[in-house]
């Protein structure tokens, strides 16, 4: 919007309208994107064995009146912020823990590496999309200037210029769609899984935390046994930690395995769709261009 406002003085009325259209199309694309993201989110929740049974989730789906979700108040926001800080510090401490289970050790290495790679790919994909959008904008300006040239022209050239102006207008629409489709299928895919991997990393973190707690509780039990004090509490605490750790390990294993499967399926679907859309748009471009060439050659 800002860029549009700045450029208003230098552009003709038609150009301004076109750029506004482009902005609206972009907004629609973002909206489409948001809808898709929400849809995927809900689908994942519903396909999860545990979360789909969550009472909150069911209310969300079924309650036919306004949910009036309370926004996070100040305390919760600060609390959340604080918790994050503590968590990051903690993560550093815990990353040094020796892992007992091979599976989790492998997963940790894989996820850390994959995360940094996918973050990089997301950023680069975003830059590609941006370039496509810039090209579409250039096409708008070219189309508008060709139109002005056509208006001033009184020779046989006039028709040529009008056709050309029309062509660039159509080309820019296709280019815009290429950009938004690439964003939807590629950039969003990468971004989503980047966040998913962050969630997986968080899971590993929670499990590592539980392991530390368990080990600490073991040490506390030994100490209690030495001092012959509070043994039952220590024992109970230790049992509790062990349970928690085991549960996390078990569900963690399931989650991470299904995560890999989901990832592969999602990548496959999106890559296929992206390739198909690229082909469709390129074919569209060829038809438009060839049509114009034939028209120009025949005159």
């Amino acid at each position, binding site marked *: 919007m800002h860029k549009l406002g700045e450029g208003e003085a230098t552009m003709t009325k038609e150009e301004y309208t076109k750029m506004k259209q482009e902005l609206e199309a972009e907004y629609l694309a973002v909206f489409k994107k948001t809808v898709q993201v929400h849809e995927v989110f809900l689908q994942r929740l519903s396909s999860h064995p545990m979360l789909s049974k969550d009472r909150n989730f069911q209310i969300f789906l079924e309650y036919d009146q306004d949910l009036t979700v309370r926004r996070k108040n100040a305390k919760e926001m600060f609390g959340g912020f604080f918790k994050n800080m503590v968590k990051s510090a903690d993560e550093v401490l815990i990353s040094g823990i020796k892992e007992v289970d091979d599976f989790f050790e492998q997963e940790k290495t*894989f996820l850390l*590496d*994959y995360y940094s*790679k*996918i973050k*990089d*790919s997301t950023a*680069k*994909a975003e*830059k*590609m999309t*941006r*370039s*496509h959008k*810039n*090209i579409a904008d*250039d*096409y708008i*300006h*070219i189309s508008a*200037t*060709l139109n*002005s*040239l056509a208006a*001033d022209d009184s*020779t*046989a*050239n006039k028709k*040529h210029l009008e056709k*050309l102006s029309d*062509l660039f207008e159509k080309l820019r629409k296709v280019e815009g769609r290429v950009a938004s489709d690439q964003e939807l299928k590629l950039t969003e895919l990468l971004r989503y899984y980047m966040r998913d991997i962050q969630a997986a990393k968080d899971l590993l973190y929670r499990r590592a935390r539980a392991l530390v707690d368990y080990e600490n509780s073991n040490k506390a039990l030994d100490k209690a046994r030495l001092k012959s004090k509070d043994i039952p509490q220590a024992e109970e605490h230790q049992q509790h930690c062990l349970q928690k750790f085991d549960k996390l390990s078990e569900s963690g294993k399931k989650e991470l395995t299904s995560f*890999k499967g989901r*990832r*592969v399926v999602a*990548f*496959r679907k999106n*890559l*296929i769709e992206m*390739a*198909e859309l*690229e*082909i469709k748009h*390129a*074919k569209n*471009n*060829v038809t438009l*261009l*060839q049509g*114009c*060439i034939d028209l*120009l*050659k025949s005159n």
Partner: protein
Amino acid sequence: MIEVMSMYRIRNPEPTKQRSVCTSSASEPASLPAEDISTNSNGPKQDSLFDDDPEDLFAEATEEVSLDSPERDVLLSDGPSPAITPITPPTSVITPRIGLPHDDMFTHSSFDEIEEEEGGDSFDMHISVSDPEKVGDGMNAYMAYKVTTKTSMSVFKNHDFSVKRRFSDFLGLHSKLASKYLHIGYIVPPAPEKSIVGMTKVKVGKEDQSSNEFVEKRRSALERYLMRTVKHPILLKDPDVLQFLESSELPRAVSTQALSSAGLLRMVNKAADAVNKMTIKMNESDAWFEEKQQHFENLDIQLRKLHASVESLVCHRKELSVNTAQFAKSAAMLGNSEDHTALSRALSQLAEVEEKIDQLHQDQANADFYLFSELLGDYVRLIIAVKGVFDHRMKTWQKWQDSQMLLQKKREAEAKLQFNNKPDKLQQAKDEIKEEIEELEGKVQQGERDFEQISKTIRKEVSRFEKERVKDFKAIIIKYLESLVQTQQQLIKYWEAFLPEAKAIS
């Protein structure tokens, strides 16, 4: 003089119809005496023209006063051409028809007739500029280009020949043509611009991408410049053009150097000219000229705008290419990281496709530039030349008016003399004034003829220019659109090859 004569002797062993056109009187194509005669007969005319030449040469007031002007001062030129080569060809071609009212159709047909007289050679010529080669070392180094001409036209001795030329040779050629033809209304195509920065890089010996691009850009521009020049039927026959294309040795055009005394004189004259232009107020009686001037003003603005948009397109397309390449690398690393075999392979394939696509974008950016952007740049500069020609017409009008005013004054002075009392001085003064009046009357007549002449020439030139422009644009735009089609078709190929890879992920 001798130099020139020998040049023409070598040039024309056999009589050709073209040569005959060059002289109004001698119909026999023995070029040597013919040239002689015409030079003589043009003596006084030449002088009067040369009096104002430094001013007449320079075009637009709006043109930036910079070191990059290719136009140069006649007086400081080297080589025999401007001072000696007869300016006869254009004027004598038209002179017989003068006296008739401004009638476009008639002038057109007369021009066509003349073209037929010339042997009816349809335009069949192709010039290519190639093989840029660095000659010399350090700051005295320069690029030598091979100029190859392939033609079947009879004005040339051979059908296929080439010479070595450097950039300043091209500028020298343009200078000579500009000094001969601009002030009588011919649209002389401008030479490519100088670039001190670009050349310094090349001289210093940087063998990198940007200096290669610079040389390629210049080579392409020189080729287009020569083709445009020879497409002009009058310029094609100009001896300087022929010498440039054919002779193996060319005297160096030193006055084209930016930091020479000629360069500085040019700058000063340009500034003076700009001031002059603002003070001329011409009564335009011809609506055609007013309309055309407005037309070229509009065209100028729109083409500059379009040029800017296309330059932006080139820039963004290059960015897209770079970003795609970066993404390809990133996707390859991601594919390596991925532990699911089929997905890993698919991601590597994606990386390969994107790498091919980035090359595609790079090629398209080049097509955007060399076809579309440079075309627009050329025409922006051509229109400056067109506007210059209109300005020369104004100056010609001014000269005519000045002569008339002066004549008027002298006549008034003559009348006053009648009342002078000193009888002995009276006769002398009367005689003097009579002489001056006669001379001025001649000047006024000449001024009027010149003005009509340049107006006629401009009408023809503009019509030819517009036809050429439409043809040029159409041809190049079709080529450009075809380049876009090719890119899209390649994209289809690449993505269709990738699709089964994506589907193979299990």
